[in-house]
């Protein structure tokens, strides 16, 4: 009986080692800082090891670790904000970057017109897509990347994002809209160039 538990533990440790790189890139997308991302992942993994015996014979271990990591990321984000490590959020409210995608009359600029990315299911399963996503997230401004990842990667509600960032809801929507437009333009550039 004891033997089985030890093997289970070893298996779970191996799985933690296997998922660590992905957890670090997830955390880095939001904290925009590799050292802080590694710290947050470290804390989540330590918490997982501490709770290891409650997972004996149960599934959902990685999901649990991932959930814990999200809390650690939120803590780290709050610390970053307290330390004044965030750029002024209002910087984000400038129209210029988005206006380049549209003509004066509100139609798409010819070279910015969105194209077909192919089957969404296979796009989301492509390792290359995620590399491009990562690069394009890094190219976003800190504020845009944070608000986008709080919403889309962490799944926070608009109210929660307002609380975490101190933004008014309307500004939050404006930032999300621009982040989405910039991300799609950036991803499309790399993704379609490689596919053709």
């Amino acid at each position, binding site marked *: 009986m004891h033997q089985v538990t030890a093997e289970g533990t070893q298996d779970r440790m191996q*799985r933690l080692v*296997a*998922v660590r*790189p*992905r*957890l670090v890139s*997830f955390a880095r997308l939001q904290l925009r800082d590799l050292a802080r991302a590694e710290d947050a992942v470290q804390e989540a993994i330590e918490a997982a090891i501490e709770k290891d015996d409650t997972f004996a014979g149960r*599934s959902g*271990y*990685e*999901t649990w670790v*991932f959930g814990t990591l999200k809390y650690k990321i939120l803590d780290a984000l709050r610390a970053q904000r307290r330390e004044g490590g965030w750029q002024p959020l209002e910087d984000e409210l400038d129209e210029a970057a988005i206006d380049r995608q*549209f003509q004066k*009359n*509100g*139609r*798409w600029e010819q070279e910015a*017109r*969105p*194209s*077909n*990315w192919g089957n*969404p299911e296979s*796009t*989301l399963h492509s390792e290359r897509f*995620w590399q491009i*996503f990562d690069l394009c997230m890094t190219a976003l401004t800190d504020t845009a990347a944070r608000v986008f990842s709080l*919403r*889309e*990667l*962490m*799944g926070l509600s*608009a109210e929660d994002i307002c609380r975490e960032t101190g933004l008014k809801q309307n500004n939050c*929507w404006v930032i*999300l*809209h621009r982040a*989405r*437009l910039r*991300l*799609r333009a950036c*991803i*499309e550039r790399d993704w379609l160039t490689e596919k053709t």
Partner: protein
Amino acid sequence: MMFKMMMCKEATHLMSRQLEVPLTFQEKLSLKLHLAMCSACTQCNQQFHLLHQTGKYYERLIELDAGTPPGSGGDNY
């Protein structure tokens, strides 16, 4: 009131906002009408939806990295 066709830029505002809150009936109708006539915005709308799914897929990527048996993530492989 005279009906005025919505332009692409405004349509992308609605595409983005519908991922946060339900649109009004009027907004839904204008967006639907615009999308029916604009292939570029239809692509943009699909891309926004794809970006909206990234969080869910990240979780699945982590399960795959861990070598969790197929099916336990709730999807078919």
